[in-house]
């Protein structure tokens, strides 16, 4: 059996909520030893070890308890830093320095330590202490505003006449997408820093701003502004810069069932007409070539919907894909859980948790042929690895551990 790709990398994990734990989970998936620092005093809500959320984002990690507000905790952390490769945290920037655990302090005991600090706005700048959720970052970045339809839609409530003033209402993303994005940048930069450390013998402090991480998903629109002064506007499901027609999201048979279709070549148009068995309208002048179709999008879409509405989205996708046309079911989470492609590729895995029992989780989408991710198991129970870490790794005696527990340091 091959060794795991990140075997031998030890990560001291101070992360919480979503972005940070998502990052350390990815590293654990590939064999890094992730030691999550928790405390009985703070392990509630998203950090309650026996919830589905916690189990999802913390699988395969170890857990120790350490009361960071106790003055003796710091020394234990420094001992752990000495035997770790990486420290990752996603507090607001003041927290680690307040504990006496700034990068400089860590580097004093372990010169080549890699510390990654991820916060909403980064470690510097006038907004560094801002509070933010994934949705906050999305609103700041412009994507909440830009993810909407390019026309006014019904106002959301009696008190809101946004629709009547002709404003485009922002809709935004229905989930905290900015968090996993920031987490991915964290994993990426930690791995790059490990490469650098091995080559140069130097550790470093990585400073990730969730805001900047997310803005980089809008790079082309930003450049269009800084270069051309153009101002991006909501596009709905229009093809935007790619040239395509028909293109969009079409209603299918069933309740709230949809399929997307995207054609970009004349060849695909011919194949499309064939799948629809050449309805009379398909031969009309106004749809005869790409630019004509582009000029008659609303009529074209209406006619296509008359066809899609008679089929399930799975049928539409199957018929069109078999004919060489890009199409896809608009899947809700239940569709995803039953998606034959995802199932065939083992995108879901079952994990046995001592309290929660059997549960399903999404696997990593990073598929390596020789050293694939190997999920070690469920998320840890609170402090379940105290023995291994304190006595095994740090070599504390039983008395020492008892004393720390008695004094409220390990708890």
């Amino acid at each position, binding site marked *: 059996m091959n060794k795991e790709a990140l075997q031998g990398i030890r990560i001291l994990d101070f992360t919480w909520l979503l972005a940070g734990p998502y990052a350390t989970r990815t590293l654990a998936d590939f064999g890094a030893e992730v030691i999550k620092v928790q405390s009985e005093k703070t392990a509630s809500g998203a950090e309650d070890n026996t919830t589905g959320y916690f189990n999802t984002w913390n699988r395969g990690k170890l857990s120790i308890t350490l009361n960071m507000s106790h003055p003796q905790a710091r020394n234990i952390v420094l001992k752990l830093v000495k035997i770790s490769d990486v420290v990752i945290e996603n507090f607001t920037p003041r927290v680690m320095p307040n504990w006496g655990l700034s990068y400089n302090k860590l580097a004093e005991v372990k010169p080549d330590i890699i510390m990654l600090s991820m916060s909403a706005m980064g470690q510097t700048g006038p907004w560094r202490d801002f509070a933010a959720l994934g949705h906050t970052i999305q609103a700041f*970045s412009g994507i909440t505003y830009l993810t909407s339809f390019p026309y006014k839609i019904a106002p959301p409530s009696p008190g809101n006449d946004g629709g009547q003033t002709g404003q485009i209402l*922002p809709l935004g993303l229905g989930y905290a997408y900015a968090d996993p994005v920031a987490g991915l940048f964290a994993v990426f930069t930690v791995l790059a820093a490990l490469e650098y450390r091995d080559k140069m013998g130097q550790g470093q402090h990585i400073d990730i*701003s969730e805001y900047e991480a997310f803005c980089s998903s809008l790079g082309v629109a930003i450049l269009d502004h*800084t270069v051309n002064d153009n101002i991006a506007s909501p596009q709905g499901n229009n093809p935007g810069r790619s040239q395509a027609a028909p293109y*969009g999201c079409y209603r299918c048979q069933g309740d709230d069932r949809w*399929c997307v279709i995207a054609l970009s070549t004349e060849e695909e148009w011919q194949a499309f007409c064939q799948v629809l068995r050449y309805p009379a309208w398909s031969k009309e002048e106004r749809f005869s070539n790409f630019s004509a179709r582009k000029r008659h999008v609303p009529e074209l879409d209406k006619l296509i919907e008359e066809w899609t509405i008679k089929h399930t989205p799975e049928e539409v996708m199957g018929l069109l894909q078999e004919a060489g046309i*890009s*199409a896809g079911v608009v899947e809700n989470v239940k569709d995803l859980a039953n998606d034959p492609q995802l199932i065939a590729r083992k995108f879901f895995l079952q994990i046995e948790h001592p309290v929660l029992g059997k549960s399903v989780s999404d696997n990593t989408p990073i598929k390596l042929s020789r050293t694939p991710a190997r999920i070690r198991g469920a998320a840890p129970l609170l402090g379940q690895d105290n023995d291994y870490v304190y006595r095994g790794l740090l070599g504390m005696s039983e008395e020492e551990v008892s004393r720390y527990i008695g004094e409220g340091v390990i708890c």
Partner: protein
Amino acid sequence: MTKKTLNLLEGLQILDLTDEKAVFCSKLLADLGAEVIKIERPGGDSSRWLGPFWKNSPHPERSLSFWYNNSSKLGITLNLEVKEGQEIFRQLVNKTDVIIETFPPEYAKKLKLDYQSLVEINQRLILASITGFGQTGPYRQYKSCDIVASATGGQMYICGAPDTPPLKPYGEQSYFVASLFAAIGILVALRERHQSGKGQHIDISLQEAVAATLGHVFTRYFYDGAVSQRQGYYDRDGSFCLLPCQDGYIFLTIDREWDILVNLLDNEGMAEDLKDNRWQDSQYRRQHFDHVVEMLTRWTKRHTRAQLFLLGQLMRLPWAPVNSLPEMVNSIQLSERNYFVPVEHPELASSEGQGKRRPSRPLPNKGGSLGGPPLPGGGPHPPNPISVEGREGREVGDKPLRYHYPGVPYVMTGKYMMRRAPLIGEHNTQIYQERLGLSSEDLKRLKANKVI
């Protein structure tokens, strides 16, 4: 003490055969200093025709999407569909660490660009393949693009409002996250290779990349059986909403901060019945959410985004203005952190462009400019308490032909790069002559035969 610094990924050699699906992956690595050689077909890659364009005029050297996604790379042209081109390619494969490609699996096999064929040339090779549905499974031959990945990955269904069709998020988010996953896979495989001396094949599916970034959607389903729906302006669980202000929209969280919120309304005499005890119950609020929204909207509409946002941040509430793109670009936080970096475009004639436009410094705070000063009470922070070595300081000079790009979203020690995207075949001589030792006669012949 000054330590020697190198590019973070100094020495890592990458051949880039990607289309728009993963062109950002090789950019991520190139910006960290890996040597990325982008291989385009003779005449230039089709992605050079993707808009928007410099000065809005379509031209293969003026695609801003090409510029952004190919910064810091080298560029050569090579026809992989002819024998001579394939032979040259094999020589390049022999010298490279990583190949990143986005071909349909069958096409790759036909051109002997599949992993089995390539590993015979170089067993240390790491190959990253990014396709719509992955290399295996019943849909592996299916076509995809951003909207198909967004739909099949579960993103579209939960974006939009209950009364609208599903909505694709702005930009090309599936390409963006698939590129990030692929780049991580490459660095993981690289670390492993230090031990084993062997490369491997990385198989990334756009569908899975999207599905793997859905936050709590799977957790809610697998543990609570909840199927996330489109909710648009506000979260039906009552935890947040987007509400209209005098000058746009504000993102408000309203669940845990209920008491603070009622106090804020009450200060302006607008809390009315929300002060009643029954509204303390979050269950009750959820059931009567329309009333909550109506009351809050009356209040938010009396204010600007900046007023509410600063008020919220003062109370440490994670509120934010719903920014337009220029508002984001001009935010003081990004400029103070030197997020934007100047990139030279010397080949664009100076007569043609001013080359100016860096994000303008925010105006002084005129009663609530969003780019305004830090929080009242928060006080200005000393600039850059940690090292920002590697992040170039802003160049203020108005030299022509320099544009401000979004830079790397992290601050690290070690150098990173940001060089403009290559011109068509710009590094042919450098790579073919210096690297492969071809003569200038060889190059002439290859050019005549349309191989390069």
